[in-house]
């Protein structure tokens, strides 16, 4: 019996900022102070505020410590765990009021507006302990489904909830199951797409690291619904913590008889295998993913036939992503109506977003569908840092588009975003401020898809490459207005002619930046200027002779020896040597160097 629980984040973000060392120091210190029988240290999954890692929560008062270092640990143990006085200076600053009062986690701006369904257990339970999952109601849904519901009722419940695929496609999950259920075969499969690959997106990783059993439970439920008894989780090998926790979870579920044969004595058998992906983005595409599980080169194939008819090993298969599955047990436990009460229109429930880019609170947030973008950016995200002006947000990663600042009040849901050519995608949100060049952003995403194209179909293999070449030409100041036409035509060609979703959506960043920021393209082409001062070829650093004191600081700093001048005389930059690193401008104390 512990009187206090200290939850320390063992997610990837906090692990890389040193949470394991903090955890070791904590256990050590607690032992030193003789509190090991009173205070329980629990390693959890992600809390969402990765920016603030390593993070730690002390229960029962739910004090949220941020950026904890091992040397802070003795103070926390003595002051807080022993004497009950939170160490205010280490508490997440948003959780300390102006009067110095320490707020509980859920009272902070970052958490207050969130509704955690998929992430309900992340940061709350020990993901390596199945009993903690069961203690929060885990495997109740599977029990209910197996003992009280028919497969059709399960499918109907999921249909009624309005849950749509959280991986990017947004296809109604219940419908997917319904289409697969009647297909007769000697073997069917339930697959989980844990090959999260969008740059900056890590929703699924967090669920797997923080609440792996919710995915296993949901897959078993899906297996019961469609008549499958074998599942596969295809998870990126680059997610070692997630892989380890899944392995532990599968093993524990077996030990407890929640996977395997005759679950709950109902005669239902279900097993799950792990398959590790080798880091190809295209393997997030369902047919490529299945080929990869089969041990072949991960390449998509044309559909139809859809996996519901002919999927893994040519057998009827359903594939959902991690976040989608994480919602399922809650839908079963709390009912479709509860789930459908959240969200708007045809977008029900909540969605997890990974906030990144130029935003104060980077991290994971889960909000009801239809929450205005402004709430996400300003209230939860805390706006752009350093007082910079918010310019746009890229949703859906390399497959999505950008939402310009003028649409900041748009409700974030499938249909509203689709109206302006954007997608929710898997939930990446990359925030951009006035210092981001939109042409450069489009180029960045296209570079990604060019790298990740599998090379099977002509449109994607060569088309995206040629688009990138045109963008490179434009950002280097050599583009023409004809190139812009060529780019736009090619973008629509690639969108319409590519074999799979990767190619069909690859041009989206270009199409949407052309739609909302065409003037930036034109500035690069006609004026040979990059308005955000990002594209190096279009930049020029110059020294104002009137302001230059001849201190030589810039010349000493310049890595390319491009600056010359005598002491106490104005210096000059040799443009042919300048590599536009900006070091001189940062060094100059007199504001004599400008960038144009």
């Amino acid at each position, binding site marked *: *019996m512990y*009187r206090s629980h200290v939850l320390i984040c063992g997610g990837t973000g906090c692990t890389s900022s040193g949470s394991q060392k903090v955890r070791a120091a904590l256990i050590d210190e607690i032992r030193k102070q003789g509190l090991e029988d009173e205070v329980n240290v629990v390693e959890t999954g992600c809390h969402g505020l990765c920016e603030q890692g390593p993070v730690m929560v002390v229960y029962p008062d739910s004090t949220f410590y941020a950026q904890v270092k091992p040397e802070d640990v003795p103070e926390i143990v003595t002051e807080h765990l022993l004497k*009950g006085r939170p160490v205010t200076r280490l508490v997440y600053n948003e959780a300390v009021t102006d009067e110095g009062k320490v707020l509980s986690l859920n009272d902070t701006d970052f958490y207050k507006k969130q509704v955690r369904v998929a992430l309900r257990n992340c940061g*709350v339970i020990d993901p390596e302990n199945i009993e903690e999952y069961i*203690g929060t109601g885990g495997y*109740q849904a599977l029990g209910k489904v197996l003992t009280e519901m028919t497969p059709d009722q399960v499918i109907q419940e999921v249909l009624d909830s309005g849950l749509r695929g959280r991986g990017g496609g947004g296809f109604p999950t219940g419908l997917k199951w319904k289409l697969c259920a009647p297909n007769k075969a000697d073997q069917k499969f339930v697959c989980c797409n844990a090959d999260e690959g969008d740059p900056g997106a890590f929703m699924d990783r967090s669920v797997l690291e923080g609440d792996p059993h919710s995915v296993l439970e949901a897959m078993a439920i899906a297996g019961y619904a469609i008549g499958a008894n074998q599942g596969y989780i295809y998870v990126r090998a680059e997610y070692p913590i997630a892989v380890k926790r899944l392995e532990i979870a599968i093993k524990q579920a077996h030990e*407890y008889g*929640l996977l395997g044969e005759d679950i*709950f004595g109902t005669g239902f058998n279900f097993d799950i295998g792990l398959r590790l992906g080798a880091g190809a983005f295209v393997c997030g595409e369902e047919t490529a993913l299945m080929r990869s599980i089969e041990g072949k080169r991960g390449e998509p194939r044309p559909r139809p036939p859809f996996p519901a008819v002919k999927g893994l090993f040519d057998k009827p298969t359903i594939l959902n992503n991690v976040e989608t599955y994480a919602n399922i047990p809650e839908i079963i436990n709390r009912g479709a109506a509860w789930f459908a009460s959240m969200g708007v229109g045809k977008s029900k429930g909540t969605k997890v977003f990974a906030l990144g880019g130029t935003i104060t609170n980077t991290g994971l947030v889960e909000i009801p569908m239809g929450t205005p973008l402004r709430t996400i950016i300003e209230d939860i995200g805390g706006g752009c840092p350093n007082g910079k002006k918010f310019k746009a947000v890229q949703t859906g990663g390399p497959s999505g588009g950008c939402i310009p600042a003028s649409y900041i009040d748009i409700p974030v849901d499938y249909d509203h975003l689709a109206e302006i050519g954007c997608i929710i995608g898997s939930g990446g949100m990359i925030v951009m401020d006035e210092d981001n060049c939109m042409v450069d952003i489009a180029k960045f995403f296209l570079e990604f898809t060019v790298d990740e194209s599998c090379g099977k179909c002509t449109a994607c293999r060569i088309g995206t490459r040629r688009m990138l070449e045109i963008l490179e030409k434009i950002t280097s100041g050599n583009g023409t207005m004809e190139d812009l036409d060529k780019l736009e035509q090619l973008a629509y060609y690639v969108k319409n002619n590519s074999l799979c979703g990767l190619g069909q959506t690859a041009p989206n960043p270009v199409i949407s930046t052309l739609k909302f920021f065409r003037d930036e393209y034109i500035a690069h082409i006609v004026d040979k200027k990059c308005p955000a001062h990002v594209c190096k070829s279009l930049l020029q650093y110059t020294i104002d002779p009137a302001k230059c004191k001849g201190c030589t600081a810039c010349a000493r700093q310049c890595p390319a020896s491009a600056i010359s001048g005598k002491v106490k005389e104005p210096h000059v930059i040799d443009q042919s040597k300048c590599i536009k690193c900006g070091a001189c401008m940062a060094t100059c104390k007199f504001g004599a160097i400008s960038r144009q």
Partner: protein
Amino acid sequence: MKSLAELQAIREKMKNTMSMRDEDASGIRVVVGMATCGIAAGARPVLNEFAKLVQEKGLSDRVKVSQTGCIGLCQYEPIVEVFEPGREKVTYIKMDAQKAAEVVERHLEAGHVVEKYTMAKSGLK
């Protein structure tokens, strides 16, 4: 696992542990003063007794046990405050583990304030 009952048993077992992490503030809060003075006067066994009994008796979904710093009345330590929504705060003084058990049983479980240990009883307000 061959039956739902087995699952329920584990859930029950874990419920008290897990409910400590609930953020629901609607229940009773038991706060033990754990400043140097409190600890010196023996607050730690009091705190642990509360924590143990609340969990053992399955009260943790409505009772939270936590500690605080110096309450300011060092000569009456160990001090325990009980906050209950809609009711006046009750302050117990000069507590020990045995008294704590009594408070758990009579106050937290049965709802009767154990007057003899309260600060009010000792004439302080």
